[in-house]
C-alpha cells in the first residue's frame, strides 16, 4: 500500500531522518517507537506528504507522494488518508459544534444533505462512545479523552484506508489512555485500517501493532513482528528500550 526508501531529512546539522525505509500493507498496524528526538514525527510527516525531504521516495498506491501537487496531497488527506494529532486541540475546530467537527470531512467530500450528515455524524459519535445528544455542544469543554475520541470520529468518518497517528494517547491520564487504546484497537480491526502509529509507549505498541520499527538518531535500528522485537530484541538499543519499560 505504501513504501518508502532512502529518506533523508536534515535540519541544519541534525539528521532527523538518515536513510530510512519502511513499508506498510493494507490492514496492517506498524508502530514506530524510539526515544524523544529520534525522528518518529519527522518520518510520519514525510510519509503523509507534509514535510519535504532532501532525498528519498514515498510511494502510495503506485504514485510518488513526494512529487504530488499540493492539491493532490490535500485530496488524499481528505479521502484515502487520515492524520490523528497528539493534541486533539490542534485538529479540532473549537469554535464549532462537536457534530460540525465530525461532519466537516463529509461536507468537504461533497455531502450536501443535512439530515444524512447528522445521521452519519451521530453514528460515528456513538462509535467513539460520545453521547450523540452532545452533538451540538462546543467541544472546547470536553475532557481530553473525549476530544481525542472526537478527533478520531472526525478522521474516520470518510473511511480512510491509511491513518497516521502521532502519539494518539500522549498527554492523557493513564486510565484514559488504556480505554482509548482499546477503542482504537476495536475500530482498526473492524474497519481494516492500515495505521502508522508513532508512540513512546511500548505497551501501546504491543497492544495495537503487528510490526514494530525502532528508531534512534534518525535511523531504523531494528524492525520486525511485534512479539519478536519485544520478546527477543536483537539490537542493544531495543533491549534497553524494552527493559526500561519492564523496569518502569
Amino acid at each position, binding site marked *: 500500500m505504501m513504501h518508502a526508501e532512502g529518506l533523508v531529512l536534515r535540519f541544519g546539522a541534525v539528521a532527523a531522518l538518515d536513510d530510512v525505509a519502511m513499508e506498510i500493507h493494507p490492514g496492517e498496524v506498524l508502530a514506530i517507537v524510539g526515544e524523544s528526538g529520534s525522528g518518529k514525527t519527522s518520518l510520519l510527516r514525510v510519509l503523509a506528504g507534509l514535510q519535504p525531504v532532501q532525498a528519498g521516495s514515498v510511494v502510495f498506491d503506485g504514485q510518488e507522494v513526494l512529487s504530488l501537487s*499540493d*492539491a493532490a496531497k*490535500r485530496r488524499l488527506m481528505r479521502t484515502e488518508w487520515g492524520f490523528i494529532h497528539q493534541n486533539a486541540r490542534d485538529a479540532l*475546530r473549537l469554535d*464549532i*459544534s462537536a*457534530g*460540525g467537527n465530525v*461532519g*466537516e*470531512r463529509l*461536507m*468537504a*467530500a461533497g455531502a*450536501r*444533505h*443535512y*439530515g444524512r*450528515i*447528522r445521521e452519519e455524524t451521530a453514528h460515528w459519535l456513538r462509535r467513539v462512545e460520545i453521547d450523540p445528544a452532545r*452533538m*451540538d455542544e462546543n467541544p472546547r469543554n470536553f475532557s481530553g479523552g473525549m476530544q481525542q475520541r472526537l478527533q478520531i470520529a472526525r478522521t474516520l468518518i470518510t473511511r480512510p484506508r491509511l491513518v497516521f497517528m502521532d502519539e494518539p494517547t500522549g498527554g492523557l491520564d493513564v486510565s484514559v489512555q488504556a480505554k482509548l487504546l482499546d477503542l482504537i484497537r476495536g475500530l482498526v480491526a473492524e474497519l481494516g485500517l492500515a495505521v502508522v502509529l508513532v508512540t513512546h509507549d511500548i505497551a501501546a505498541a504491543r497492544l495495537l501493532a503487528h510490526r514494530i520499527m525502532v528508531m534512534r538518531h534518525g535511523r531504523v535500528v531494528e524492525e520486525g513482528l511485534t512479539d519478536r522485537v519485544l520478546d527477543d530484541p536483537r539490537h542493544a538499543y531495543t533491549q534497553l528500550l524494552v527493559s526500561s519499560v519492564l523496569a518502569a
Partner: protein
Amino acid sequence: MTTGYNFAYLDEATKRMIRRALLKAIAVPGHQVPFGAREMPLPYGWGTGGIQVTASVIGSDDRLKVIDQGADDTTNAISIRRFFARVAGVETTESTTEATIIQTRHRIPETPLREDQVLVYQVPMPEPLFKLEPRVRESTKLHALAEYGLMQVKLYEDIAKQGEVATSYNHPVIVDGRYLMSPSPIPAFDNPKMDMNPAIQLFGAGREKRIYAVPPYTRVESLDFEDHPFRPIRAPHACALCRSTESYLDELITDDRGGRRFICSDTDYCAQRQRT
C-alpha cells in the same frame, strides 16, 4: 468643463490598471483580483472600491444611477451621484430603466436589468471565508483548490443552532460552478437576481483592494443543503405605498406605540408603481 480633474477623477493610467483587473475578473468569474486601489476623496465606508470601478468604466454618454440600500435619496447616494456629475459631467438618473451604470450598496434593483447595463457593487469585505479562515494565504489556497467544505460547515452550524440558515445578508454563492463569492451585503432575497443576469456585475472593495465580477448570463448559486434549500426571504406583507407583494421591504417604525409600516426598499420601483 474645467474641474481641474481628469475625466471621472482618476488619471488614465490608474483607470487602465483597474480595467485590466476588471477584464481579468470577468475572465475568471467570481475570482478576486487584487488591484492598486487609489486614495479617494471619500472615506472607505462610502464605497471607494465601487467608485473606482465606476470611474474606470464610465463614459461621457453614460447615465449613472446610485443607490444605497435601494434608495436614490440617501446622503451617500446623492454625494456619489454629484461627484460623478462634477468630475465626469455625466447625466444622472434615479430610474433603473434609464441608467446605463448603476452603482449600488446593499441592493439589486427590483426592475430586471438588461444587457446594456452595468451594475457596480460597493463591497466592504470581498473574502467570503474571512470569518472562517482569517489567514489570507490559507484562504487563497482554499479558493485555488476549490475547497469550500468549511463554508458548508458554517451553514451546517447555523441550522444546528438556529434551525435555519442565519445569513439573511451576504449569503455566499458559487459562481459558474467554481468560485465561492461574497455577493456583498445584499439581502439573501436579491441573490437569485444575480443568477443568469443579462447585465455585467462588477464588484469593488476599496479598503481590501480587490475586484471581482460576474459576466452576463453566468450561473450564480446560493450555498445550501438539499434538505434545507436556500430561501430568498422577504417580509410577508404588501408595500404600504405601492401594494407590491413581490419587492423587498424595509420596516419603518411609524410612532412610539409600536406602529410599523412596510415599504419597498427600492424607491424607484415603488415610485414607478405608484405612478401607474
